[in-house]
C-alpha cells in the first residue's frame, strides 16, 4: 500500500514550536507519518501530546504563536511547510478539508449552513452555486440528517450539536477532497449521538475513498474508525501499527498503560441496613425555571447514605446537574421535600443555616474556572475551614497541611502556589480539598473527571474512593460516562428529559432487562473491539426491522 503511486501524504521529521513566555518551545518533536490513498490513520494520545498540532500541520497550517521549525509535509508531491500562502490556500477545501471538534463553535453564526457549505466549492469553481446546493442536500441526505432538503437553510443555532457535526462532515466533503482531518469530531457529543456521527463519517469516507486522519483521545472510538493507529506522547511518536495489532499486541509500556486505564473498580460495599438514615434524600422533587412552561425536574426521588456513591447518569439536558442545583438550594423545588439527616431543609440556600450548608459541598467539572486564579492554595482551602469550622492561626495551618497530604500533594511544595502553577489533575485535587475543607457529609461531584485525561481521571477516582472510606462520605456522582459509573457507583440513577428512567443497585441496572433508554445508553458506549460499531448498527437495524414486522 505504501508505494509511491498510492501515497498521498508523507510527513517527515515534522517539528513544530510554540511561543510560550517569549521562548520557542517544541510541541511536535520530529514525527514521521505516511498516508496512502483511501487510508484512515488514527492519532491518539492525551492532551498536550500534539495530536491536533500534527493534524493541522498536515494541512500546512499552524496556529498563531506556532511555527514549523523543521521537517516536511509532502502532500501529493508539494511540501506544504515551504509552499507559498496561495498554494496552500488553494489546496484547502478542494483537496484537504478539516472537521473541527466543536461544530457549534466552528460554524459561523451569521450565515446559513448551506452557504457555508457551498462557499469554496463555488469560489474555487468546482461547481456552480445551484449544483453545489443540490450536492449539499444530497450529502445531507447521505449523512442521514433530518429534513435534508430544508436543514441547510437554517442558521447554526437552530440545529442540534450532533446534526451540526454531521453537517460539518458534509461541508468537508463539498469539494470531494482527497484528505480530511477529523479533529476529535465526537468528543463534545453524547454517546447516543456519537454513534450516529461515527457511522455517518465512516460510511461517507468509505464511499468516496477519502483518506483521513482521525484524531481522538478515545481508544474505543479510534478502534472503530482507523485502519492504522499512531500513539503520541509529548510530541513524539510512541508507536504505530495497524489497528488489529495495536489493540491486541501493543509493544510500548505507555500504550499498554493507556489500554489498561479502565481497570479501576471500587470494592463492593455491604447493603444499606434497613434503619439507616440517609444523609440527604430527595422526595418527589419537581422543579421549574420561572421562564419555562415545563418543569425541568419531574418527581425526582433519591437517597444518599454515608460511605456510598450514587451515580447519576444521562445525556446533556437530562437534568443531572439541575438535580444537584435543586439539592443545593440554587433552584428551589416547586413541590417535594429535601431532607438532611431526616430533617427538612429549606428549599432556598439563603434560608439554610451555616451547619446545613456545611454538610453538602460540591466539586466542579472545570477545575480551571472553579478556582480563583488570584488566590494561593492555602487560602483556597483555608477559607472554608475558617468560614464553616472557625479554624484560625496554627490550627488552620496544620489542618490545611493535613488535608493537602490527604489529597497526595506535598504541603511544603504546594501551600503557597497559585492555581496557574498546577496541572489539570492537581487543580481537580485542590477542588476536592476545598470541598472536604468544610468537613461535609455529602459531596456532589459534577462531571469531575470529564475534562481530564484517562490516566489522570483514574487517579482522581482512586483518590475519591480512598477519601470516601476515610471520612465515610456520601457521594452524588454526576457523569455521562458509563465506564466511570461502572468503576465507582454503588447505586445508579438513569435520567432522561428531567425524569428518572431507572434506578437501583449498580449490578441490577447493568444486567438485563433494562429500561429501553438504559439499553440505548449502554449499547452506545464504544468498546475496544473494532467490530463493535458494525455489531451495534446491525443489532439496531434488525431490532428496527423486528419492531416493524411486529407492527
Amino acid at each position, binding site marked *: 500500500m505504501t508505494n509511491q503511486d498510492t501515497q498521498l501524504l508523507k510527513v517527515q521529521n515534522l517539528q513544530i514550536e510554540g511561543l510560550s513566555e517569549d521562548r520557542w518551545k517544541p510541541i511536535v518533536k520530529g514525527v514521521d507519518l505516511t498516508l496512502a490513498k483511501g487510508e484512515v490513520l488514527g492519532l491518539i494520545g492525551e492532551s498536550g501530546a500534539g495530536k491536533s498540532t500534527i493534524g*493541522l500541520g498536515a*494541512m500546512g*497550517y499552524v*496556529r*498563531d504563536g506556532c511555527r514549523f521549525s523543521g521537517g516536511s509535509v509532502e502532500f501529493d508531491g508539494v511540501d506544504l511547510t515551504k509552499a507559498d500562502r496561495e498554494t496552500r*490556500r*488553494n*489546496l*484547502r*477545501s*478542494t483537496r484537504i*478539508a*478539516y472537521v*473541527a471538534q*466543536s461544530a457549534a*463553535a*466552528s*460554524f*459561523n*453564526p*451569521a*450565515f446559513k449552513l448551506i452557504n457555508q457549505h457551498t*462557499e*469554496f466549492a463555488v469560489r*474555487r469553481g468546482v461547481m456552480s452555486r445551484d449544483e453545489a446546493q443540490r450536492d449539499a442536500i444530497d450529502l445531507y441526505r447521505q449523512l442521514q440528517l433530518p429534513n435534508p432538503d430544508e436543514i441547510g437553510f*437554517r*442558521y447554526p*443555532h*437552530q440545529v442540534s450539536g450532533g446534526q451540526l457535526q454531521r453537517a460539518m462532515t458534509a461541508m468537508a466533503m463539498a469539494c470531494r477532497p482527497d484528505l480530511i482531518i477529523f479533529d476529535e469530531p465526537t468528543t463534545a457529543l453524547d454517546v447516543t449521538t456519537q454513534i450516529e456521527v461515527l457511522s455517518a463519517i465512516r460510511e461517507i469516507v468509505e464511499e468516496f475513498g477519502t483518506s483521513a486522519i482521525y484524531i481522538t483521545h478515545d481508544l474505543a472510538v479510534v478502534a472503530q474508525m482507523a485502519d492504522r493507529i499512531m500513539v503520541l506522547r509529548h510530541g513524539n511518536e510512541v508507536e504505530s501499527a495497524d489497528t488489529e495489532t495495536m489493540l491486541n499486541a501493543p509493544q510500548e509500556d505507555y500504550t499498554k498503560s493507556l489500554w489498561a486505564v479502565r481497570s479501576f473498580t471500587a470494592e463492593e460495599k455491604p447493603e444499606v441496613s434497613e434503619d439507616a438514615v440517609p444523609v440527604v434524600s430527595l422526595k418527589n422533587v419537581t422543579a421549574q425555571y420561572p421562564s419555562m412552561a415545563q418543569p425541568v425536574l419531574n418527581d425526582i426521588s433519591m437517597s444518599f447514605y454515608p460511605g456510598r456513591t450514587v451515580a447519576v447518569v444521562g445525556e446533556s439536558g437530562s437534568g443531572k446537574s439541575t438535580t444537584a442545583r435543586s439539592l443545593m438550594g440554587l433552584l428551589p423545588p416547586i413541590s417535594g421535600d429535601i431532607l438532611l439527616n431526616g430533617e427538612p431543609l429549606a428549599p432556598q440556600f439563603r434560608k439554610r443555616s451555616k451547619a446545613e450548608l456545611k454538610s453538602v459541598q460540591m466539586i466542579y467539572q472545570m477545575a480551571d474556572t472553579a478556582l480563583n486564579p488570584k488566590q494561593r492554595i492555602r487560602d483556597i482551602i483555608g477559607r472554608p475551614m475558617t468560614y464553616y469550622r472557625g479554624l484560625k492561626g496554627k490550627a488552620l495551618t496544620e489542618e490545611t497541611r493535613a488535608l493537602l497530604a490527604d489529597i497526595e500533594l506535598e504541603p511544603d511544595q504546594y501551600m503557597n502556589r497559585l492555581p496557574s502553577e498546577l496541572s489539570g489533575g492537581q487543580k481537580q485535587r485542590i477542588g476536592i480539598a476545598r470541598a472536604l475543607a468544610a468537613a461535609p457529609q455529602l459531596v456532589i461531584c459534577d462531571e469531575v473527571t470529564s475534562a481530564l485525561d484517562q490516566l489522570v481521571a483514574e487517579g482522581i477516582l482512586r483518590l475519591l474512593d480512598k477519601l470516601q472510606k476515610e471520612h465515610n462520605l456520601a457521594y452524588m456522582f454526576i457523569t455521562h460516562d458509563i465506564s466511570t459509573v461502572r468503576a465507582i457507583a454503588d447505586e445508579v440513577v438513569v435520567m432522561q428529559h428531567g425524569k428518572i428512567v431507572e434506578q437501583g443497585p449498580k449490578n441490577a441496572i447493568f444486567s438485563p432487562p433494562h429500561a429501553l433508554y438504559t439499553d440505548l445508553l449502554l449499547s452506545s458506549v464504544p468498546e475496544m473491539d473494532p467490530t463493535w460499531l458494525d455489531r451495534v448498527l446491525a443489532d439496531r437495524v434488525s431490532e428496527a426491522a423486528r419492531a416493524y414486522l411486529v407492527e
Partner: protein
Amino acid sequence: MHYLIKLFIQRLALGLLTLFVVSLVIFLSIELLPGDVAQQVLGQSATPENLAAFRRELGLDQPAHSRYLEWLGGFLQGDLGNSLISGIPIWDLISERLYNTFFLAGFAALISVPLAVLLGVVAALYRDTLLDKSINVATLTAISVPEFFVGYILVWLFAVELGLFPSIANLSDDASLSDRLYRTFLPALTLTLIVTAHMMRMTRASLINLLALPYIEMARLKGASQRRLIVIHALPNAIAPIVTVIAINLAYLIVGVVIVEVVFVYPGMGQLLVDSVAKRDFTVVQTSCLLFSATYILFNLASDLISIASNPRLLHRK
C-alpha cells in the same frame, strides 16, 4: 419578523418614557438656574413693578407645574412656543439652525463612519504592523488634541496656507448644495478627526476579538484569504459593538459641536443654545434640549435594532 416589530414597539415606548423623564429633568434644572429673563432684559435698574408686569406678560408668574404642563402640551401638539426674549415662534428661530446642525453632522458622518470602519478593518488586517500602529497613533493624536486646536490647525493649513477652503462657514439661506459642502468642509473635517478614533478602535478591537474564534479558524482552514476572513466572516459578527459606538458618536456630532461652531462661526444649534442660556431664554433652551435628547434616544433605538437584526440568534429563533 414579528418578534422584531414587537421589540421595536417596546423600545419605542421605552424611548418615549425616557423622553418624558428627560423633559422633567430639563424643566427642573432650568428652574434651578439663578436669575430670569425679566431681570436679564430689564437690567439691574428695573423696579419691582416693572419686573412683575413683564413676568405677568410672559406667563412667568404662573406656578412651575402649570408652566411645565403648558409647555409639554404645546410640544405634543407641535407648538414649540415662542422665544421669551424676541417673541418669535421658536420653530422659526431654530428650524434653519437645526437643519444646519443636521447637515454638518450628516456631512461629517458620511466621511467619518466609512473612514473609521475602513481604517478599523485595515488595522485588523495588518495588525501589529507599522501600518496598524500608524493608524492608531494618527487617530489617537487627533482626539488627544483639543477640538478648537484641531479646527485652527485646519484653518491655518487649508484656508490660510493653501487657500483651498474658507475659514468661516457662514451660510446664506439660499446657498446651493455644492456651496454648502464647500463652506462646511473644514468644520466637517474637524469633526471627522474627533470622532474617527473611537469608532475605528472599536472596529479593530471587535474584529481582532473574533479572529481567535473557532469559526474563523475554520474559514481559514477552508482556504479563505485574510481579507475574506475579516470582511466576509468576521465583520458581520462584529456589527453590534461597532453600531453601538457609531450611534454614540453620531449623537455627539449633533449634540456636542458647540466649540467647532464657534471656531468656524457656523450658525448651528450649539451656538443658539449657549446664547439662550446666557440670555435666560428658557423656552428656547428647553425646546433645544428636548430635541437633542430625542435625537440621542432615536440613535440609540436605531443602533439597538440594527444590533438585534444583525444577530441571527435573535432574528431567527429556534
